């Protein structure tokens, strides 16, 4: 980190000693997993820098934004429309939920058998380790699973700034009505806390910013379809993880720069691995930063991850928002429509997800699919069986993994994954 941020962390009420410990562990993990990779694109330097300053410079930027009367909106889910946040000059930030911290403390509020992601965000808050939660003016939850839905009640009591959007469980006309009403209510909430009115021009500009981010991430995804893969799955995952907390305009420019470099690699027919390296697509639960466990195992076994069919991944950027609207009202409806295309496992039925998985596997030339579910992430664990059936029907090798953030199952995961790679090896 470029300078000493202790004063800032102190002001935010972080537990300084524990936070130092966390940063030390993360720095080591990052060195071991990321910086040791060979043939990384130069364009990753920026993202390395972002990680090195993830609790430093970026938090300082947020504090400066607050001083400029901008509101910080913390989120946990891709259902929260960033466009609306930007339209009131807010900053949209994904909150910490990808590391095993404070589980002893979170277990005094939620059951032990809760998914690692929920336990993590509770643990981060309870142990005073997440500067994002502390900087946020509003934390937006959503009803995408029972665990989160109920955990937000406790989280609201702990933070006093939680607002929950109701995501319907089906996609019929009246579900759309409910969701449109929810998006409208959220827009009103944002206008209320910022004392700003959403103007058409501002909303259009916001839509453009977020669409451009999606386009850049789509471009990165397409580039991974090349063999040899021009970028490692670990690096691409990192870019996707950073998409949730970097400034969107700067981030988009940096992703495009990275993609220019990858374009050149493709033209030169070079990559991070040799052509013919087994290509794996991951489908399932989100991998919040710094959850790099599965990618590290797969790529450590000489394969390459070419896609994440997940919220931190394709689900986040697959669909652009139709910017053809002429009033704020119409724009909000378009937002609602766009977000209800998301193929989250919280919907029933959710068959479009199966079609999307097969289409992705084909487009990215995946040799096999690993379905990844966090333990106790019931909806994705349930859907994994449907995914297994559809992969079988399409002759795509399949492996189901259920795990969490701990390292105790590393040996077994390695054996299973290596055996899977032996199976799909070309």
């Amino acid at each position: 980190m470029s300078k000493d941020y202790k004063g800032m962390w102190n002001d935010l009420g972080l537990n300084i000693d524990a936070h130092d410990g966390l940063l030390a562990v993360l720095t080591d993990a990052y060195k071991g997993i990321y910086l040791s990779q060979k043939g990384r694109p130069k364009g990753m330097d920026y993202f390395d820098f972002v990680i090195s300053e993830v609790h430093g410079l970026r938090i300082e930027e947020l504090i400066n934004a607050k001083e400029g009367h901008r509101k910080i909106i913390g989120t946990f889910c891709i259902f929260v429309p960033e466009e609306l946040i930007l339209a009131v000059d807010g900053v949209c930030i994904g909150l910490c939920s990808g590391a095993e911290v404070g589980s002893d403390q979170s277990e005094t509020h939620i059951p032990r058998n809760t998914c690692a992601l929920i336990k993590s965000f509770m643990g981060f808050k309870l142990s005073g380790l997440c500067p994002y939660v502390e900087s946020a003016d509003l934390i937006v939850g959503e009803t995408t699973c029972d665990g989160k839905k109920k955990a937000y009640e406790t989280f609201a009591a702990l933070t006093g700034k939680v607002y929950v959007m109701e995501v319907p469980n089906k996609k019929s006309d009246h579900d759309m009505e409910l969701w449109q009403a929810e998006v409208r209510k959220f827009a009103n909430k944002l206008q209320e806390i910022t004392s700003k009115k959403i103007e058409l021009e501002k909303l259009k500009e916001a839509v453009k910013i977020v669409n451009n981010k999606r386009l850049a991430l789509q471009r990165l995804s397409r580039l991974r379809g090349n063999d040899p893969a021009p970028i490692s799955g670990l690096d691409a995952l990192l870019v996707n993880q950073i998409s949730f907390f970097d400034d969107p305009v700067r981030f988009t420019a940096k992703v495009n720069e990275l993609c220019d470099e990858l374009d050149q690699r493709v033209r030169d027919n070079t990559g991070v691995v040799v052509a013919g390296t087994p290509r794996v697509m991951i489908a399932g639960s989100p991998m919040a930063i710094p959850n790099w466990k599965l990618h590290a195992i797969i790529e450590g076994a000489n394969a390459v991850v070419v896609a994440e069919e997940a919220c931190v991944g394709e689900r986040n950027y697959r669909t652009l928002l139709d910017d053809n609207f002429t009033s704020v009202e119409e724009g909000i409806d378009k937002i609602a429509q766009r977000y209800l295309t998301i193929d989250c496992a919280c919907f029933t039925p959710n068959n479009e997800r199966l079609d999307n998985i097969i289409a992705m596997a084909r487009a990215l030339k995946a040799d096999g699919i690993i379905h990844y579910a966090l333990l106790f992430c019931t909806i994705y664990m349930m859907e994994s069986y449907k995914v297994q059936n559809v992969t079988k029907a399409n002759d795509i090798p399949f492996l189901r993994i259920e795990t969490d953030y701990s390292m105790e199952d590393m040996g077994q995961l390695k054996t299973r994954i290596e055996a899977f790679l032996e199976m799909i090896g070309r």
Partner: protein
Amino acid sequence: MKRGGIDIGSRFIKYVVITDDKDISFSKAETGHDPLSVCEQLIGDNKADKLVATGYGRHLLEVRDNVQTITEIKAVARGAKEIFPRCRTVIDIGGQDTKVIGMERDGRVRAFECNDRCAAGTGRFLEIMAKALGYDINSLGANCNGDDVSAISINSMCAVFAESEVISLINRGIKRETISRSLHSSIVYRVTALARRVEVSEDIVFAGGCARNQCLVNMFQDHFQRDILVHDHPDMLAALGAALH
């Protein structure tokens, strides 16, 4: 040429050397606390021209001597196919893990399922239960001729909880042969659930140290309604597969 395969398992290290005319020699030793020294000893006693490592500790040798490695899943499938050419399914119960492997006709692994992260229902589990019942591990399988187990069942596959269940059954006056039988059937129940997911076909080979347990073999035979093939050294197959790789 002499081809060597070493299987570094959780309880034993198994070493196979196979010559060009398919003469197989097999040796094994307890893994203990210093597996590398045990490997050196085994390898030193019968040097091979080429060595492939497998098993839970395979990376130990890879890191040290740049030895090629394959997973025990691929290895045991290969070894089983060598000895039993019609084999399409392998049930492998080792010291700390259980797997069921489905193969294509040409021997390639088609699908596999493993037990979860703990040692539930594995060789280690049987060792602990044998101790609780006062049997030697080698005689446990011969001592399950108790009454039908429908009256009692061991519900827990966790070695710690199952041991408590066993102790409470002993204290209820249940004969140890009956308890033993119930323990075996709970393992079979669990393994057959894994087997259902890989779809059993054609000949089934039972590998791993637990294949010496005749009670398990009989119960699998009853369940699958066909012969279960067991090699004289069922714990040798993964090392053999590695040697042949």
